[in-house]
Structure formats: C-alpha cells, structure tokens
C-alpha cells in the first residue's frame, strides 16, 4: 500500500460519522479493515454478493457501462461501496443519513 493511499484512508476515517472502512479483493476476502474481524467478515461476504448483482445488472443493460458507485442507505446508517477492477473498498458510516 502506498503512503498516499494510507493517508487517504486515514483522512476518511477521521471524518465525523465514519465508522469503518474495509478494502476487499476480487474474491471477496477482506485485505484491510478498520473494524473488528467478525464484523469485517460478515460485511465483506454480504456486500460482495450485492456488488456482483448490481454490477451484473448495470453491465447487462449496456456492456460498455460499468458500476462506479453504490450506496445503501438504511434507517440507522449508510454503506458506501466503490468497486474497482480487481478489488473494491467500502465504507460504513453510522451517522444518520440526512432526510431528503
């Protein structure tokens, strides 16, 4: 991991409301995480499937398109998922999402 990436992750972590950030590789195995092990594994497994489904949907409609970002908002918190080509990162926030 380069220093730049590390720094960016630190900055994100220090923003208010961010509970944790998890980096996952292409097979769904978490590489780096700021949360504890059990919740990391749980999140990683669930998110992986959702991401594959979302990506499949986007690309099925237009193969030249690709998923850039996925946001899941729930009552208590918000999960933001950014997929890359081989790996993806997602972020778990505990702040109450603003009412639109």
């Amino acid at each position, binding site marked *: *991991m*380069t220093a*730049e*990436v590390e720094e*960016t*992750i630190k*900055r*994100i972590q220090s*923003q*208010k*409301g*961010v509970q944790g*950030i998890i*980096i996952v590789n292409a097979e769904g195995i978490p590489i780096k995480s700021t949360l504890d092990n059990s919740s990391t594994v749980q999140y990683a497994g669930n998110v992986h499937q959702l991401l594959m489904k979302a990506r*499949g949907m986007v*690309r*099925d409609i237009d*193969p*030249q398109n690709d998923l*850039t*970002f996925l*946001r899941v908002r729930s009552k208590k918190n*918000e999960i*933001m998922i*950014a*997929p*890359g*080509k*081989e*790996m*993806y*990162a*997602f*972020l778990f*926030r505990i*702040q109450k*999402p*603003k009412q639109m």
Partner: protein
Amino acid sequence: MSVSHKVGTMKSKQDEEEGLDTAEGEEWMQGKTLVKPPDQLDLTEAELNEEITRVLKASNPNAPQNVVRYSFKEGCYKPIVFVDQMAIHFELEGNLVHKESDEGRRLMAKQAEVDDGGGVERPDNVAIKAAKREQKLTNQFNFNERASQTLNNTPRDISCQTEPPPRANFSATANQWEIYDFYVEELQRREKSKEKHEGQFLNKEEDKSKKKMIQAETQNDDISQLAKVVKIIERMVNQNIFDDVAQDFMYFEDASDEFRGEKGTLLPLWTFQYDKAKSLSVTALCWNHKYNDLFAVGLGSHEFTQQGGGMLLFYTLKNPSYPEFIFNTASGVMCLDIHEHLSYLVAVGLYDGCVAVYNLKKKTDQPIYNSRASSGKHTSAVMQVKWQKDDLDSNHNFISVSADGRLVSWTLVKVQIQMTFVKCLRKTTSYNVKLNKCVFFIGLVGTSLDFHKQKDYSFLVGTEHGKIHKGSKYYSSKFLEKYDAHFMNVTRVKWNPFHPDVFISCGWDWMVKIWDQTMKSPVFTFELKTSVTDVAWAPYSSTVFAAVTTDGKVHVFDLNINKYEALCQQKVVSKKTKLFNIEFNPVHPIIIVGDDRGHVTSLKLSPNLRKKPKVGDALILCIEKPTH
C-alpha cells in the same frame, strides 16, 4: 304339419292285449307316449288328410326383387329386370395348383433347387444326389448325419478401473457483458501480439524486463486501483458531509432576488483550506479549463518582510476538505497560469524571481522546468505569468512580467527553459536613464499583465506607479500607448473577453476603471471604499465584473443594469481578513476568492447577477451612452 303317431298307440294296445310277454318292449313302447307341443294347431281329420303340394324353386328368396338404377343416358331411374339369384352360403379358396400348369412347374423347380443346396457337404452323396433332383431322399446305405460342436471359449469379463481425474466444479454465467469483456481482451491481446511481431529483435531482454514489468504491473494496478477506489469513497464521504452545500451549488436559486430589484447576493458555498497553508496567504487563483471543477491556488506572501516557503495547491469542488495536488516551492508563489489546452501544464512565478513549470501528470513533487540563476531569471518577484501559443517549433512558451521591470518570454525546449527577452518597461518622463541593451536599468515595476484574447500580440502591463502600458510583441522597443490609470499601484489589468477594445483596471487608490483602448480617459470609474486588490470579468456576460477589496468585500457590477452602483457588495470573510484574488468559474455560476489566511471561499452568484445581455454587444451600447 305334424303327423300324429297313430301307429304307436295301436301297437301299445296290441301289446296290452297280448299280455305281459315282453316286459321290456312294453316299457320301451310305453316310453313313446304322445307329446303335444303347446302351440300345435288343432285340425280336423279332413284338414289333416288334405294334400298340400310344395314346389322347390331355384329363386333366391333373399334376393332383391325391385332394384332400381339411375341411368345417365335417359336421366331417370330404371328398374333392373335381371337380378342375380345366386346365394353363396360358404366360400373357401383352395391352394392346390395343377402339376402341369405354369405355376405348378415353377414351384417344382424351386423345390428342386432347395434340395440341391441342402446336401452339398457329403461327397458320398454327390453321386447319389445327381440322380435325385426331384426328391430328396436320404441314402439308406451310408448316409451319416454328422454334426459337430466347436469348442466354446470360456467367456471372461475383464474391466479395469482408473483413478478418476481430479474434478472441479465450474460454473459461470454468460452475460452480455462477460462476452463483451472477453472480446475486448481478445482485441488487446491481438494488438499486443502485433506489436511483438513488429519489434522482435530485442527478444530476450524484453522478455525478462517484461516479466518483471508484469509482476510490478499487477502490483501497481492493484495499488492504483485501490487509490482510485479510495478516492471515490473519500469524495462521496465529503459529498455526504457537505450535502447541503452540494445541493445549493447545483440547484439553489435565490428566489428573493425577484423582490430585491436589481440587487443580487452571493451565497457562500465551500471553503477550501489546508492545514499546512495556514500561515500563507493566497496570491493567485486559476481555474482549469478542461476540468471545470479543478482550480489552482498559489500561496505565498505579499509582505516583503515575511517571506518563507510557498505552495501550489489544486483543489476540486468534489473534495473540499483536502487538495488534490500539493507542491511545495522554495519561495512564495506570486502568480500562476494554467495552459489553455494542455491543462496539466502549470506555470508558476515565484517571489525570488524564478519561474517553474509543473506537470500534473507526473507524480513527482518537483517542477519539470525550473529557471535558475544560470538560465536567467528575474531579479525580483515575478508578478504575472501567461501562457502563449506554441511557437513555430511547437515548443510551449509563456511570458512573465516582474517587479524588476522586464517582460520575458520563456520557451520550454526539451529539458531546458530558455529565456528570451521581450521588453523592458521604461519610464518616459523625468528620469533619463540610459538603457544599455536593456539588461541593466532602472525600470518600472510591472505588476500585472494581460494578453488580448483575439489579437494575441497585443498586451497590457500595469505598473506600480499607476500607469498602464499597451504594447505589442512585435515592437520590442516602444510601447504603443500609455494610460494614466491610477495614483497608486495597479493591481490588475484585464481585457474584456467579448469586447475587443475594452479593458478594466484596478488599483490601490480605491478605484476601478474601465477603459476603451482608443480613449485616453476611462469610460467608467468606480470608487470602492478601500484598496481594490483584484478584478475579474464574467465569462458569460460582457458587462458583468467583480472586484475584491482589502476589507473583505466582494463587489459585483453589471453595467447593463446599473452603471453607477454595484449590484452586490457583500462581505464574505471574517474581520480583518483581506481578500486578494477573485476568479469566475468558466462554466458554473460561482466565484472563488482567496484571502490572506490561505483560505479560498467559493460563492454562488444569485440570478440577478447572472443576467446575460440580450443584445449582442451590450458593452458598446453602455459606452456610447454619455456618462455624466
């Protein structure tokens, strides 16, 4: 008719008369009693004796008697007289064939053949066989029927079992996009193989280096992807945090503008700040033309006494909390310019007189070109740099003006930066200073520089003494025109982007003046209460401009609507903060202002300030109307 058994009754009477001679006969005879059927006709004797003749006919009682056929010839039904009377009771087809008939002969011949084929084996029989063709009779003397049974091999079952090959479950989906991906990869592979074919002489070394490359590449790819991915997350987090600001930026239109008449307001949006730049003040701002949300901030210090390092930061509106690019410079940055077409080239002028060019595409922290004392530099702070069109050798070049009074053109030739002297600023009044080759001289302090949008050779220079000189690149000895603009330092000169003759200037003497280059005196003059540090034309209208002053206020004017007053005078920063720079975004209706704390504030213009003139050249109309 039935015949009664009279004889039987008579005989029995006779038997009874004879007595009991033949008991058996009597019993037998008595068995034959008369049995009358219940429905027998009772006839008299006469009727019984009547003779009735019965005739046998050859006619068939079942044959139809009145058959009628339709005759097409006559067109009516006609009865047929002769009806077939033959009744067939039983029919059986036989299969006997006469010996002498054709078919019989054929059959006989066939049978003989079959007999011949059957008994070929036995040589004994051959002779005998020849004699009997018609009939097959077995020879009674030495006919042996021999049959033999061959040895049957014992049947065996042989099978072998191998170790099953390793199995793995494979499942995949064939979606449209997977097929597309595969095709894209295939194309790339083909292209690579073509390249390999073309450059085949450096085989071995290439292979080795390629192997290393591939490994490194995959790692790099991972990291670069990770960086990208993390960056996206960071931006989204920021968007969440500044959600309301982002919404305002995009959609908010101040509805109260309708009630305010001509006036407008500025809505503060994001504030960009960087921790390490707290002690520095913003000295230059520039928007990127290609990426409309990216802008560059130059940080340094205006004060002569407080000189330290400087910084060049790039911010994007998508991430207000942290700059995208950070470059540290040895001395304070005084001015910067981003190339119009190659938006990764940034020219920076420093306080110590150096100029540097940064390439944003490269990851390094150092400028790609840097002028040093040896390659020629300004002896004093560089106040303004501007990129020019590429010269004949398609090298990039830019021009700088500095406080030592020189206008220098710098050309980027491969790895070096070369300095070409353009002009020196001269005072034409009382001082008679001889200028030898324009190298050693006492000239005027140039503070601002602007090139005409259409006529590239024509430029304006503002000086510390308040004069504005108009010059041309083709005349290096003299200036074309001189305007007595301000009493004090001219901080900014700018051509109007729409009107070819109009430019604006501002200075420390509290004035903002609008000029027509053909006239010696200004067309418009505005007095703002404190020294004006920067002024900028709006890119969407030829009559709108904004100015910032040292009391922290932004003034926005629209000459089309109001020629004497500002439409908006708003304080955008806290007390005692001076504003130094202002720039309009080329696309979005926002402006950025830089202050002396190192902060950059973005503000959104309300609709009243954004009115585009309906008439094409509104500015000309404004100027032609007499100003009193």
